[in-house]
């Protein structure tokens, strides 16, 4: 298992070995949705926000 840094909060995010470019995972610390930009070495970026209406 490798790790990458969350671009939102700076925490380490565990990455499973078979993760592929384009997959979305959430940071376990801040919950941000992160897109896998590269795998070796792993790079994460904020996933494009779904214009999700969550309560209004």
């Amino acid at each position, binding site marked *: 298992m490798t790790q990458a840094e969350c671009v939102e909060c700076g925490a380490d995010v565990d990455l499973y070995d078979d993760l592929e470019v384009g997959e979305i995972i959430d940071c376990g610390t801040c919950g941000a949705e992160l897109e896998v930009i590269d795998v070796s070495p792993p790079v994460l970026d904020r996933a494009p926000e779904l214009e999700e*209406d969550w*309560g209004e």
Partner: protein
Amino acid sequence: MSDDDASSNDATYTAGVIGGTGFAGGELLRLLAGHPEFSVVQATSRSAANKTVGSIHPNLRSLDLRFTEPSDLESVDVLFAATPHGVSMEQIDAYFEAADTVVDLSADFRLPNAELYDEWYEGHDAPEYLERAEYALPELNRENLAGADLIAGGGCNATATILGLKPLVDEGILGPETGEVVVDVKVGSSEGGAGGGAASSHPERSGVVRPYAPISHRHEAEIGAYLGLDVSFTVHAVDMVRGASATCHVFPDGPVSKGDLWGAYRSAYEDEPFMRLVSGGSGVYRYPEPKAVAGTNAGEVGFELDASNKRVVVFSAIDNMMKGSAGQAVHAANIALGLEETAGLEFQGLHPVGSP
């Protein structure tokens, strides 16, 4: 129950409601059907065309009216539109073909110009109507509503905030130059409309104090435009269905007395048919509360002076479905048409009442 006839003969004006299955649309139908001067001739819906109004709004089971498609507008005196943002700006020409007066409850015509609109929303389809439209809140804009033919209902959180702060602005206690204005709003689930998703399901939405718009709520635009104030605005969802409550924390520049405050609020609202001052007193209900106005077009406003840190706390409570949308729209239409201001809006609310 014997049927009410939706169109009573001696009504002066015919009315139509676009978005009749929605929460605001349902309230418009209830108010207009019970209004002495209106007769409802059409309620539109795409999803429930041909169904009775009562199949969606159980309180209106006695109303003898069926939804029809919005593509097929009937000619009316006044057309009320209660659709999501973006629909009315596309349809506005069609609306004016069908009606002399249009009252729109969405944000489409609320802001005074296209620049401000673009700043907070995503591009306007009919910017030429922005100036023509009058903001519906009578306590703010009564003088321009008489005879208006395009009326834009205020946002419910903006309405609560404007009602709370306007007397302070009018008296010069608050202005663009004074310090921070923090507006902390608490709202019920009907604010989200009938179409709610996962976050609005009963198990997830019950019992919450949920920061749903921590920053950058679009109603800031209206408040800025009409009060000239930049406010720090945060909205929380709480466990009620109806109601919006705004707590405004205000820091005037100089010393303010309780007398000054009473003066400002009494002179602003003493003659207003729907405004009540509720500040202190005794008993259970000492400050504005949404449930004290639930189901009504009333607005409650009150305040307290925090001498120690020179803060004024202003409380303001409305029913978002009434003063915050459908009631405000009917109130504005009454003024536009020269009717009795309170016509159709006389319901006094309930006590006791839970979480209406």
